């Protein structure tokens, strides 16, 4: 079987998740463009009794066969090339099965090479179990014990800029040697260790670790303090991931012989497509994938760009891919932007999730932060027990409305906490000395400032069960807005079937196909959020708006449906949702009140293009950060009014026996009566 052919008309892609293997079929259409056409899924089969991942892959592909009517398999072989309605031109895959890639990293200074090593590993799709550093406060025997206790899939050792310290990084290598950590998969294998530090220390590190570990030398990931060079080490991580980790997992050796491109860790693939989209459209993107156990956040920002007005109407221009991108490709033909270099970051909040680690969200966020999102009161003990029951029975779903509301409240907190962790890591390089004028001293932010700018953010994408499978799209939009609190003008979207991993690995094969499917089929556009940043007295003026005729798409725009919606005054504390259909683009003129900023500066008028979606246009006057009333009673009323503004919850539910439905908040109403 030829694994890849020159033509690329039909593509089958899988993502092997921890519990589910998902397959999608992508086909070139008559107009030459690519569309995702069919999708199938099956349980992942790495655990007993199957212990062979290819079984789940074949099952998922079989489902695609049944739905599409196209023969893709001949027994257990994938037919290539595509011909006469049979077969595919390439099979590609991603994987996060078996918990994904788990790494330990080490650097000399925690906030410098330690952080750089952490960013390198995260960007490669790994979960970072620990970051060791010479100055992390732990005693040598504690470091050694910690290394021994963890069972990472591999270790990334960095530290010393080129020409810098040798002894500190060799000391770290000695700790690794003394701990003699065993890899997670198989006691008979040597642990892969990557040294990406001071070139002057290579020989000594080789002497210390060369015989007892599977040592690979890579370029220094922080050759000078002013610059990170993460791409080479990330590539080594990818290669070792395939060779050492994936190859040991049951069935992966066979799977690797089937694919026409290297298998990627799922998070790395998601990062790829995000960077591709940012590059193609010249936009800043923030994406989140909230799963059962972890929450991944991906971001692409232009820290030096002038595009900080937050307008999504700005002409997209191609960007030079960041040096930190794992597969830097040449810039597209469009003009080089003055947005500067794009910086990609990924974090994984390994203990924030909606089932296995849902209880951790509660303990980290605190009960009050969860309860503030609920439009009803709930006994603390009851809330704790419900969340723990979800933890121990993770596959159950909320049947009652109030249980759904509790889950969505927890999701808001998980997302909020994950963003905080992301902000902390997605920072400018620390330890960089810059020449500053006197005015710079007052204006320039210190090195180490977060790159995440919610005002300049263009696109916010959500994925993961609680976001993708929310009963109403308004609920997804509300969770994204409440948790991330975007400012200015931000487009909202959701990856409804988690196709991003597939498109990420496809982007490595054919960027055009990947981006076309991403734009047409992957994202469900929810609409646009306009959120002035500022604070004020509830009921006071926040911002006036005027929506002008749509410029593209369906002619039925805002003014056609509801003339009264075309202009208005948003008040402080208010949330409004106006219809703006999917595919419709309109122009909005915003005149923020004094002290409020929509992206052009405090009190400054802004004209921008906005895009519609399934939810529409959300105008958020609640301030940043969102201000909650002091008293619980007032807060309950406020939460309900915000819920009503977005039509979050159904006024009536059909399909149940009538006796079980008593109103908008049946459980809460019954509780109040008791």
């Amino acid at each position, binding site marked *: 079987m030829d694994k890849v052919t020159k033509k690329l008309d039909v593509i089958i892609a899988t993502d092997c998740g*921890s519990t589910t293997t998902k397959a999608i079929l992508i086909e070139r259409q008559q107009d030459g463009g690519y569309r995702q056409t069919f999708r199938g899924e099956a349980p992942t089969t790495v*655990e007993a009794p199957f212990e062979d991942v290819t079984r789940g892959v074949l099952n998922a592909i079989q489902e695609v066969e049944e739905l599409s009517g196209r023969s893709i398999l001949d027994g257990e072989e994938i037919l290539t090339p595509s011909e006469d309605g049979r077969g595919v031109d390439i099979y590609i895959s991603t994987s996060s099965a*078996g*918990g994904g890639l788990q790494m330990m990293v080490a650097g000399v200074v925690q906030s410098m090479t330690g952080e750089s090593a952490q960013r390198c590993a995260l960007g490669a799709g790994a979960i970072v179990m620990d970051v060791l550093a010479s100055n992390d406060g732990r005693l*040598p*025997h504690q470091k*050694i*014990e910690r290394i*021994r206790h963890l069972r990472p899939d591999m270790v990334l050792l960095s530290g010393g800029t080129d020409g810098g310290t*040798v*002894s*500190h990084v*060799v*000391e770290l290598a*000695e700790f690794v*040697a*003394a701990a*003699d950590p*065993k890899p997670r998969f198989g*006691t008979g294998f040597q642990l892969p260790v990557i040294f990406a530090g001071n070139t002057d220390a290579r020989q000594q590190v080789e002497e210390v670790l060369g015989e007892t570990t599977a040592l690979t030398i890579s370029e220094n990931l922080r050759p000078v303090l002013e610059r990170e060079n993460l791409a080479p080490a990330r590539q080594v991580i990818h290669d070792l991931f395939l060779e050492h980790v994936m190859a040991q997992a049951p069935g992966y050796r066979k799977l690797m012989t089937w694919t026409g491109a290297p298998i990627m860790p799922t998070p790395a693939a998601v990062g790829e497509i995000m960077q591709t989209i940012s590059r193609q459209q010249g936009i800043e993107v923030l994406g989140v994938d909230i799963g*059962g*156990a972890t929450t991944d956040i991906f971001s692409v920002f232009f820290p030096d760009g002038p595009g900080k007005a937050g307008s999504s109407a700005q002409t997209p221009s191609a960007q030079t891919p960041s040096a930190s991108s794992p597969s830097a490709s040449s810039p597209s033909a469009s003009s080089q932007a003055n947005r500067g270099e794009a910086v990609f970051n990924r974090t994984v909040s390994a*203990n924030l999730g909606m089932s*296995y*680690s849902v*209880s*951790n969200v*509660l*303990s980290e966020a605190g009960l009050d932060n969860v309860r503030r999102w609920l439009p009803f009161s709930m006994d603390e*003990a*009851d809330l*704790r*027990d*419900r*969340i*723990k*029951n979800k*933890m*121990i*029975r*993770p*596959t*159950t*779903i*909320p*049947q*009652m*409305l109030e*249980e*759904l509301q509790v889950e969505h409240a927890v999701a808001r907190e998980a997302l909020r906490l994950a963003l905080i962790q992301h902000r902390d890591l997605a920072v400018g390089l620390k330890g960089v000395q810059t020449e500053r004028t006197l005015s710079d001293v007052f204006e320039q932010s210190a090195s180490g400032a977060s790159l995440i700018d919610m005002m300049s953010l263009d696109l916010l994408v959500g994925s993961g069960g609680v976001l993708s*499978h929310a*009963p*109403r799209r308004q609920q997804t939009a509300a969770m994204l807005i409440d948790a991330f609190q975007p400012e200015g003008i931000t487009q909202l979207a959701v990856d409804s079937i988690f196709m991003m991993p597939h498109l990420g690995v496809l982007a490595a094969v054919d960027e055009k196909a990947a981006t076309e499917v991403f734009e047409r089929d992957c994202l469900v556009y929810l609409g646009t959020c306009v959120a002035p940043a500022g604070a004020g007295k509830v009921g006071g003026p926040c911002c006036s708006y005027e929506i002008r005729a749509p410029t593209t798409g369906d002619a039925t725009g805002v003014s056609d449906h509801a003339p009264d919606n075309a202009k208005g005054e948003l008040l402080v504390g208010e949330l409004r949702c106006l219809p703006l259909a999917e595919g419709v683009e309109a122009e909005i003129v915003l005149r923020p009140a004094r002290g409020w900023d929509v992206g052009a500066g405090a009190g400054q008028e802004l004209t921008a293009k906005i895009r519609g979606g399934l939810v529409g246009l959300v105008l958020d006057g609640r301030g940043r950060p969102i201000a909650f009333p002091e008293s619980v009673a007032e807060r309950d009323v406020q939460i309900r009014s915000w819920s009503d503004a977005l039509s979050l*919850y159904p006024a009536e*539910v059909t*399909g*149940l*026996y009538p006796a*079980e*439905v008593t109103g908008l908040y049946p459980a809460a109403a019954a509780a109040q009566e008791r």
Partner: protein
Amino acid sequence: MAHAYTPGLRVTKYTELLKQRRLPIKGEVLVEVGDVVERDQIVARTELPGNVTTVNLVNRLGINADELTQYMLKREGDQVKAGEPLAETRPLIKWFKTTVNAEIDGTVESISSVTGQVMLREAPIPVEVPAFVRGTVEEVLPGEGVVVRAAGAYVQGIFGVGGECWGTLRMLVEAPDQRLEPGLIDADCGGQILVGGGLIEFDAIERAREAGAVGVIGGGIHDRDLKKLLGYDLGVAITGAEEIGLSVIVTEGFGQIDMARKTFDILRACSGQEASISGATQIRAGVMRPEIIVANDPAAERSLTDAAAEPDPSGDSSQNPAHQAGMRPGDALRVIRAPHFGRLGRVSELIADLRQIESGAHVRVLEVEFEDGSRTLVPRANVELIEE
């Protein structure tokens, strides 16, 4: 989509089990195939490398790292005792001599002329693995451990804390909805595994711990009591290493939940017998649930022929051919989420199309008929099948 359901926990009055007993690293297996073993019998043994201590000699001697080997009194691989000199300077005036002594007993692991540090490794830490259950050695895994075949009652819980232990099982209540009151726990409970029916609370667990009990089992527990017991909020369901003085297993979940009738009856029947329990729980990537095993004396165990002659009451839904085929009308089930948490019933109809539930979601549902004859729709994801 009949497969979209949660297989139930194993709860059976008789089954045959194969328990793997493995060392964390390679070592020595102490038994052979066919040996009859007791719960506390050590079946495999090894040694973990001792803890490592580092000594920064360059600072203490005031020398350069690359000079270190000249001043060392010990070489790599040498044994040292606490107080014994490791290295010393040799100045012309002996008054100025500096000596650094070892602070622990151990072996010189490494001497680094780059960092100037010496690593001393303490004596190896012995690790022993007991059989945990009474049974017969079925298989030896060379250098790694054994597989023990046992037969008897087997009950899986839904959640637990604390590791492996064993003792006499003792039912302290009369009904599955009865709470385990502290007053029921007396001084004779030392070394026992106490069983309640419904809620187990912190006060009762504390009383059991004071009395020397090794385990407590009940239907439900409040999270607030679990937090008191552990001293912290449990964030992720990975347990088994808590050092709390005993093991705790809940069979149903969090809150005031009665123990399932079948579970209660089996445990009551086993009261007075020796049991092995483990509170270890892991919900992700290789699910592990707490377990209660009351293994028969291997000599009195039914033969393989006898077991094969009877219908397999293993209670393992995933092995039952009927359940491998999915859910079917008439199957017994239990609801595992509100609003009908814990109620027993039967599948009265498997509905093909998606239905909207109160939350607004459109999901696969089934119609369940409860024991009192009432019927309702429940999401398929919110039931577990139970073996009859």
